[in-house]
């Protein structure tokens, strides 16, 4: 007696296949000239930038009560596809000579070297914290840490914010300038913080976070600061210690000065090779290429599997940032194509109506 076992062909819906065999699914789509998200290879997702209007001084929005209180100085909402990023900017005051960038106890070796090279620089940055809502609590994960640090470094090295733009010019309460003889010996500056919350993450989020941060910075307004009446002066022998109470005006403010030409938009591309070994239907083959395929703005599980990635920031005409992961086999041609696409994307987004706000 013999038994026959029959194997049934399993059919998986695309989202299941994306999880168990991402590379296979991607190849299947690429063969017919599409991507799993049904976009074309060089098609970006539409992006909508709007101001959240929750900042203290953002009275242009009819938000009534929410303006005028709290310590949010700038805000923005950026939506791309289904993914949303909300960025809030706040600040604090630091004595210039005492900013603890060189406190060796708190730093790792790399940071010590970095802070030494940063010391004389005239650029400033924003301390960024990115939170990606992913259904887990606890400390930030690898991606959040990486994106936060990268945003900090990018803003710093792009020269978007000059140290001078954050310097506080002390005044009297009201509009008068402080007389020269009362000006304290120490200089004060603002320190900027940003939190970015990302909802519905569908792919790499760096571009979106960068966009949200830039748009929030454009909305940021710094308060005018005056010295409150309380002033303590303690003298121990010949060392004189002065301490002032610095108070921010409730209404008076001025916009944060940015180097407008340094405002850029970043685009991430994935580079993938068409695998000839994956079984395909000759009739349905839509594309005929031997080179690699450049995919704009990765999205979905299948595309996240692509290891070779190129991130380009551009302000529309000038390149301001480039990073390549898994660089093996990236040719000049492909880089040039990425630059070209990133430039066009930046021109389009930065000149769109929303960005003008």
């Amino acid at each position, binding site marked *: 007696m013999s038994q026959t076992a029959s194997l049934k062909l399993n059919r998986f819906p695309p989202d299941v296949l994306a999880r168990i065999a991402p590379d296979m699914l991607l190849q299947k789509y690429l063969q017919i000239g599409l991507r799993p998200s049904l976009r074309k290879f060089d098609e970006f997702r539409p992006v909508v930038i709007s101001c*959240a209007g*929750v900042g*203290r001084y953002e009275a242009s929005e009819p*938000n*009534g*009560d*929410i303006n*005028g*209180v*709290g*310590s*949010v100085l700038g805000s923005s909402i950026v939506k791309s596809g*289904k993914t*949303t990023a*909300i960025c*809030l900017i*706040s*600040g*604090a*005051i*630091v004595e210039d000579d*005492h*900013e*603890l*960038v060189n*406190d060796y*106890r*708190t730093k*790792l070796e790399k940071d010590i070297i970095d802070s030494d090279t940063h010391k004389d620089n005239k650029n400033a940055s924003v*301390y*960024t*914290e990115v939170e990606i*809502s*992913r*259904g*887990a*609590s606890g*400390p*930030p994960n690898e991606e959040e*840490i990486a994106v*936060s*640090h990268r945003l*900090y470094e990018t803003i710093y090295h792009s020269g978007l914010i000059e140290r001078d733009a954050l310097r506080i010019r002390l005044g009297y*309460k009201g509009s008068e300038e402080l007389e020269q003889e009362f000006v304290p010996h120490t200089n004060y500056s603002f*320190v900027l*913080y940003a*939190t970015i*919350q990302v*909802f*519905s*993450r*569908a792919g790499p989020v760096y571009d979106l976070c960068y966009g949200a941060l830039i748009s929030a910075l454009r909305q940021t307004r710094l*308060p005018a600061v005056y010295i409150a009446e309380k002033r303590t002066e303690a003298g121990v022998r010949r060392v004189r210690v002065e301490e002032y*109470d*610095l*108070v*921010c*005006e*409730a*209404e008076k403010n001025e916009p944060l000065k940015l180097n407008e030409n340094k405002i850029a938009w970043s685009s991430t591309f994935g580079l993938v090779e068409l695998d000839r070994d994956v079984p395909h239907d000759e009739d349905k083959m839509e594309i005929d290429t031997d080179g690699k395929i450049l995919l704009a703005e990765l999205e979905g599980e299948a595309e996240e599997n692509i290891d070779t990635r190129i991130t380009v920031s551009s302000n529309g005409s000038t390149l301001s940032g480039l990073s390549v992961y898994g660089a093996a086999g990236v040719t000049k041609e492909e880089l040039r194509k990425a630059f070209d696409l990133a430039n066009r994307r930046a021109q389009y987004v930065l000149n769109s109506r929303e960005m003008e706000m």
Partner: protein
Amino acid sequence: MNVDRRRNVGPANVKPLVFAESRPPAQHIDPKIFLETGLIQNCSGSSYLENDKTIIVTSIYGPRPNFARSFNDQASLKVSVELSKFLPLDNLKDNRKNITPDKERLVASLESFMLSNFQSLILLQNYPKSSIEIFVQVVALNPAHSLVYTLKNIVNGVSVALVDSGLNIRSVASCGYSGGADHEMAVNFSGEDEILGIWSDFAAFDESFDSAIDTCEKDSLQLRKEINGYLLQKATAKQ
């Protein structure tokens, strides 16, 4: 020295911004709410609730496999409330003590209240060996809103998100609020005369307590009508 290297926290010796006294926030409260479900893609259920500039985003993950314990015959429920970093928390104080509480304690008490509420609302025994997690993010907060009023908004946001998630629940809960000059109260109802939880600052259980509960019930009934209307409209629009 304990330094958080995972977060980019900035220099240690900064002074927080101190703002000059500004005009007191308006005390009237606009009861209109804006509700939307299913905006967040990668979770089982989500809701977006906006009430008078307060924005609350809720996302629910689960039932997911729970590997934490060897065996549990019902789902474990976890509630996390996150108050966005730069929110004005001055008004979120306890009426009895009149001090602005520590953020962590505030969050902990909100979480434990919601946990006990929703533990009896969700049919946890239908999901053995799994975990259900509720995440509430307060993105923006109207400074005029008190703690109890915010709690009401949060609870209602979670209730709607629970419906969106398709988890088995006993009924759609709705939370009512009654606020007077001295006392505030929020009562979470899961149906007529069925109370899931009460948050109030009453010290004595006298007539004013009873009338406050009645006000809450009326408020919750009104809200339930609105929520049901929205959900019905959403359900029929899909087809």
